[in-house]
């Protein structure tokens, strides 16, 4: 089994086919006039129309987008601080514990995170009356907590590649520490910061388990809405929704790819 043997290359092709099959099917089904998956009823956009008028989905989508944006921004700030702390501050008390806390949520099963956060919110509410009920705030806090660890990984990788003497040189040339950071390090981190924010945004948008635990009445995120629709039976609107997401993401990646290529040289 060498790197270029037919078997290996064949497996790669199979792997891609495997990965993209559901995506392709979603797109096909979304334009299928029939509800059935194995029967082609003709090309139709009725499911998209239905989706566009389904207030449940629209409201849920709006909530999810707001939560994702808020939690991603929070996660970005916290995660960047954490990355800076781990890479630039040489030693500090509790560093091992800190590194552990940063790494743990990455591998912790969602159900445990969800349960733990809910139990804490409940206990907190009992003790000091905040948070007042569960909804937008609690979901945002929960998502930010998980996402910040991912942001740390992304920013840390980039930071480790950055020459620390660049910031020292900026200070040596007369820029006070904060200004040196903003003028020199931040521009160099920019791609990692953008990637981190997008990653956090995607994770939040996609999360169903933690949201189910920590959300409350009236705070239905898009994934929760999708889950309940699925449980109620076949819902071809979801194919349309999936296709929309795929196209948006695809377009976004194409744009990002083009930008990176232009920047690259």
């Amino acid at each position, binding site marked *: 089994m060498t790197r270029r043997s037919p078997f290996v290359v064949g497996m790669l092709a199979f792997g891609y086919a495997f990965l993209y099959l559901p995506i392709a099917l979603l797109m096909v089904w979304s334009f299928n006039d029939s509800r059935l998956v194995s029967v082609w009823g003709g090309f139709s956009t009725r499911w998209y129309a239905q989706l566009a008028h389904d207030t449940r989905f629209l409201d849920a989508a709006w909530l999810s987008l707001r939560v994702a944006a808020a939690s991603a921004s929070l996660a970005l700030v916290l995660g960047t601080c954490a990355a800076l702390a781990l890479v630039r501050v040489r030693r500090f008390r509790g560093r091992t514990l800190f590194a552990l806390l940063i790494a743990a949520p990455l591998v912790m099963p969602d159900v445990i995170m969800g349960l733990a956060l809910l139990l804490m919110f409940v206990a907190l509410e009992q003790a000091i009356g905040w948070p007042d009920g569960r909804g937008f705030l609690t979901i945002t806090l929960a998502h930010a907590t998980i996402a910040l660890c991912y942001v740390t990984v992304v920013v840390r990788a980039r930071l480790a590649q950055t020459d620390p003497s660049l910031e*020292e040189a900026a*200070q*040596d040339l007369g820029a006070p520490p904060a200004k*040196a950071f903003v003028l020199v390090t931040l521009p160099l981190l920019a791609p990692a910061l953008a990637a981190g924010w997008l990653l956090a945004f995607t994770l939040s948008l996609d999360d169903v388990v933690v949201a189910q635990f920590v959300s409350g009445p009236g705070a239905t995120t898009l994934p929760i809405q999708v889950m309940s629709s699925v449980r109620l039976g076949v819902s071809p609107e979801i194919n349309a929704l999936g296709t929309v997401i795929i196209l948006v993401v695809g377009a976004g990646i194409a744009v990002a790819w083009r930008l990176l290529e232009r920047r690259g040289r």
Partner: protein
Amino acid sequence: MSRVVAADPVIRIEGVAKGFGAVAAVAGIDLDIAEGEFFSLLGPSGCGKTTLLRMLAGLETPSAGRIRIGGADMAGVPPHARPVNMMFQSYALFPHLTVEGNVAFGLRQEGLPKLEIRRRVAAMLDLVQLGELAGRRPQQLSGGQRQRVALARCLVKQPRVVLLDEPLAALDKKLRRQTQFELVRIQNQVGITFVMVTHDQEEAMAMSTRIAVMDRGRILQVGSPQEIYRRPADRFVADFIGDANFFDGIVGGPGEGGLAVSVEGLAAPLLAPGDAPAGSRVTVMVRPEAIRMGEDAADGAGNRLEGIVAGIAYHGDASLFQVALASGRMVKVSAAAHDLGRGDAVRLWWPAAGGWVLR
């Protein structure tokens, strides 16, 4: 030892020490550097020279002692407020700025008017001969060009002192020689004090007005290149700088030209200048180029040895001969091309003044 300079030194280091945890990187250094000097901190890696340099820049704080620059105490003064600029080993050029942006960076921090900044940057780029590359990014430059940008970036701010951290380490040999001349020329032209850190003793000798040899956090000797080469303070310095023959022995007493040192395996005691009590253990150092070979070795007060040529390393301008004495000891002799070949018997001679006694 010219460690302390009489007139107002631009840098005065008093009792400075720096430890990292349990490790003492720098242990109690006193040093004065005069205005306009090209001063080198020379030593093997880990000797503390870079730490000392960074303390001058303000990037590290001394654990003990005091640093004065331009007469002012630098305690608590951050790097951006010091009249000092540093050229980093990696050059630390800002990749997201052009050459012009890099050189102008320090002037922008001073809040100077745009026109003046542009004028000074252009003048500096001309000085280092990079005028045409002003619009390029560092990634598009060669190593030598990047180094010049880094230097220009420092000099344009007209600091009292420029610190250089192994400035030539990343360049290939030929470029290094050229750049050595360049740096000295520029320093003479602008008259700013340069303090350079290097592990390359040839470089330090070629460029500096004075050198401080360091090892394990301490200064072993400070002096001009000639002083350090001819009269090293101890064996470490003698060994670190240039090539040398070492003869361990015991001082017999005063001899012609200095002391007579009896060395095991040699018939006659070696004569060399120095100062040590009789009976003490010393080492006689003799540089390879001080020894002369050939049957027509001169007469007069000096040291004579006989041996057989064991090896020759041809170096173009001169060759390094390894001569084996009867006792088996190897003596290194540097001489211009000779008719001698391997296996030839040869007589060695050097005047007493050609050696030096180390304690």
